[in-house]
């Protein structure tokens, strides 16, 4: 395949394009879901094809096909070129790329056990056993456990001379117990909601999750929530659990630091960003406890890779440094706006999608607190755990999150369990109220395998390293 791609790059050069790149991608996916001891999803998909991005007449064109022949590569090259020429009739200025580096490399995700070689019966048995534990009590009406594995081979070539091959492996699993009684529905999930937790790596990721040993607790908490009181509305100090902190970072720091959003190119769908160019370097985004980095190099993160889909090497850069907003997620086209080169955040959801600026691993650096000490240090408030719902405005300012469970903190101890907890705030005010973050013993890189952006819709695999953190005087519950 690599030879065909290189031949096509030569063909595009002969057509006089300003720049072109071609990505071949082959992705194998295995999904298993067991609901109430019935295997209701068991599928393997093979998705392969190539996409060609052409810069001509100062504008972009992109075309893609699942047909892997030399003739099709040439046909699609011509199509991408024609599309670029069509784009150019509306251009207001020429697209300019940063200088870029040339690489010839092969990156592979380190892993111990190829999940595609693990027997299906073993995986099904693991999920069945969890289902059985969750369903030991009749209040649990739905027990749902799932696993998914992604194996991707990508070859990237461009007119600058880069030839990069990557073999990525991702594994994840999770489960949810849904208790239903008298019109009340309550859920508890492990290790996270919305499909569980994902990491780059092999089947060892699943084996290290402690899935089975948490199932009794998850079941009991779901049942307890049925009779728990609703979280009362008001202002309170809150400690947010690590997995919910991951979504908080995702929505209120990850997305608004995407430079394409800031420049308005995602405005019609996902929206823009309050973190405008004039605020770079000056906005006090959070308290001095808050440092957030983009790090595509950290071990095990779902946003870890060797090179992004423009052939830029994976990097680690600060976005928020001790509370001050200092960086964006960028691409080769946008980085020049802030006087930099790309920091390697262009990622595409497969061969048939154009790369967009996406999160990698956007990590909240750990603080110094043990969780037990932090709870003990909190006179009154709530501990909020595991995401249930999320919503944020189109500039990423006003957010509202729902979580599965909240416990009252009274005199430094966890007390009453509350159902249907919500909290809401305005992003910079919220992060400036952060006065404590737990240490690396409580820090974990949470994989988010469902980050949507772009048209046509692209689903990115990203991650957030987080630990529990405390925020003062936050609005909880909903005013009516």
């Amino acid at each position, binding site marked *: 395949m690599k030879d065909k791609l290189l031949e096509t790059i030569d063909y595009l050069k002969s057509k006089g394009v300003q720049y072109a790149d071609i990505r071949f991608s082959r992705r194998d996916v295995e999904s298993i879901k067991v609901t109430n001891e019935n295997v209701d999803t068991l599928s393997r998909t093979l998705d392969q094809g190539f996409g060609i991005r052409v810069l001509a007449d100062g504008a*972009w064109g992109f075309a893609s096909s*699942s047909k892997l022949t030399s003739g099709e590569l040439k046909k699609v090259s011509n199509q991408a070129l024609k599309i*670029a020429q*069509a784009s150019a009739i*509306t*251009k207001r200025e020429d697209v300019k790329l940063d200088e870029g580096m040339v690489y010839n490399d092969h990156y592979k995700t380190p892993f111990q056990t190829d999940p595609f070689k693990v027997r299906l019966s073993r995986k099904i048995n693991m999920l069945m056993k969890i289902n059985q534990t969750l369903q030991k009590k009749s209040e649990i009406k739905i027990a749902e456990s799932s696993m998914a594995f992604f194996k991707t081979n990508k070859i990237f070539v461009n007119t600058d001379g880069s030839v990069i091959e990557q073999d990525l492996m991702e594994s994840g699993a999770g489960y949810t117990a849904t208790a239903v009684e008298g019109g009340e*529905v309550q859920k508890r999930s492990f290790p996270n909601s919305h499909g569980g937790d994902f990491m780059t790596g092999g089947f060892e990721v699943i084996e290290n999750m402690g899935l089975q040993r948490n199932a009794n607790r998850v079941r009991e908490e779901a049942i307890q929530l049925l009779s728990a009181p609703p979280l009362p509305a008001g202002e309170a100090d809150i400690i947010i659990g690590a997995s919910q902190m991951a979504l908080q970072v995702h929505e209120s720091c990850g997305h608004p630091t995407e430079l394409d959003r800031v420049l*308005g190119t995602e*405005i019609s769908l996902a929206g823009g960003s309050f973190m405008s160019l004039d605020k770079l370097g000056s906005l006090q985004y959070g308290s001095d406890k808050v440092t957030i980095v983009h790090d595509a190099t950290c071990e095990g993160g779902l946003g870890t890779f060797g090179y992004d889909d423009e052939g830029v090497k994976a990097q680690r850069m600060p976005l928020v440094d001790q509370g001050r907003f200092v960086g964006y997620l960028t691409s080769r086209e946008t980085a020049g706006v802030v006087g930099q080169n790309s920091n390697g955040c262009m990622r595409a959801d497969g061969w048939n*999608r154009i790369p967009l600026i996406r999160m990698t691993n956007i990590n909240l650096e750990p603080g110094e607190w043990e969780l037990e000490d932090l709870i003990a240090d909190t006179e009154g408030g709530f501990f909020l755990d595991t995401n249930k719902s999320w919503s944020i405005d189109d500039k990423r300012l006003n957010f509202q999150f729902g979580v599965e469970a909240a416990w009252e903190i009274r005199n430094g101890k966890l007390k009453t369990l509350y159902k249907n907890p919500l909290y809401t705030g305005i992003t910079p005010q919220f992060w400036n109220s952060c006065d404590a973050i737990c240490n690396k013993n409580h820090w974990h890189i949470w994989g988010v395998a469902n980050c949507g952006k772009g048209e046509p819709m692209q689903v990115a695999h990203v991650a957030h390293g987080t630990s529990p953190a405390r925020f003062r005087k936050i609005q909880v519950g909903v005013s009516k």
Partner: protein
Amino acid sequence: MIGKDRLFTTLEKVMADSKADQTEAVFLGSSVGLTRFANSHIHQNVAETNTTVYFRVAMGKKLGVASTTSMSLTDLRRCLRAATDIAKRQVENRHFDQFPGQQDYPEVETFFEKTAKFSPRQRATKLKRIFTKTINNNLDAAGAFSTGEGEVAVLNSNGLRCYQPYTTASGNIVIMGDDSSGYVNFVSHNIDDLDFTALSNTALKKCKKSKNPKEIEPGRYEVILEPAAVANLLEWMNFIAFGSKAFQEETSCLAGRIGEQIMGSNISIFDDALNPAGVPFPFDLEGVAKKGVEFVADGVARGVVYDTISGNKENKQSTGHALMPSESGEGAMPLNVFIKPGDSSLEQMISNVEKGILVTRFHYINGFLDTRKALMTGMTRDGTFLINNGKLSNGIKNLRFTDSMLDVFSNVAEISSESVSIPGWWDAMGCNHVPAMRVSEFNFSGKTDF
């Protein structure tokens, strides 16, 4: 486009080698172009030619699914073997009986030559006219405009054969000023249904009208929800309330309440996949002919949609709402949802509001707060206005709502006679076709800075 005869010949050749008790092949193919624009120029312009074949096989009651994007006979045979291999290692699905048998399909017009041939340059030319207008008005245009063609085929070993070609044209336009914006979106099988001048003028007018937005305090207000806003809410209802999985798992607000009055008596919501006013399609991805389904009739809960397996759980027939075989664990979902229109107009509704808010559309709704109550939250955007003494007044800064849709749809005072097709999550096979509504009470729980 591969065409019906070549597709059937290829897939039948592969299925003839199947070692499974029952075999099903689902083909989805498309060639789609999408142009994205922002700051009044095109910044992304893409084309995709793709094919996917799903094989679902049954060994007794054990099911296996595999899919491939390759159409080579070697890869297709390998894919079928993979599905069979999975089925052998599966456990029995107690709700599976057999794949559907032969069906009769209504004739539905879904393919329009002009739409199929609509080129990137034609899309760019249409958009350039909008850009000229926005640049001349010191405004910006953003959005997306997609055109394309595709084909869907389902075959199974029970003799079921169906094939449908289609075209699609869809997108959205946002016109933006320094502190205001206006929005429209559109979808049809036929490009000739879309009047770009009128669409862009609507967005432009809203943008101009909403500049210098004023801040108002959250609280309970009378609201007018334009069709896009109604469709935003309805799209979540389709997901959390009207599908078989949510109903059978009792997380739907309809579960256990069939026959009960759950909304106002002026509300009827139904799926009608054959209605040419929407984006019709004759069958689902098991090849079952689409049937009309009432979710709510005159405010009374009536039912949900089913595929074969979820139907078997309740001894019911499939209603023709199966999704891709790889997603069968998610149950059936509605794709062509209508709300029965009323006899009012947008202007009449505005004139009946003493103090209230008009919402063009919502952003980032989430309906997982409490699905039994259909409790949702989300933000307004792209044209939120104050109404004073029966007149559209100034633009206002955006607000967050948190409210139960059972309450909202119980408080509908007026419904427009005109409905609009709003794109859903699968433009090729459906849309939400909805009117505007006046709701006497709607809970805004928060505000933002713009």
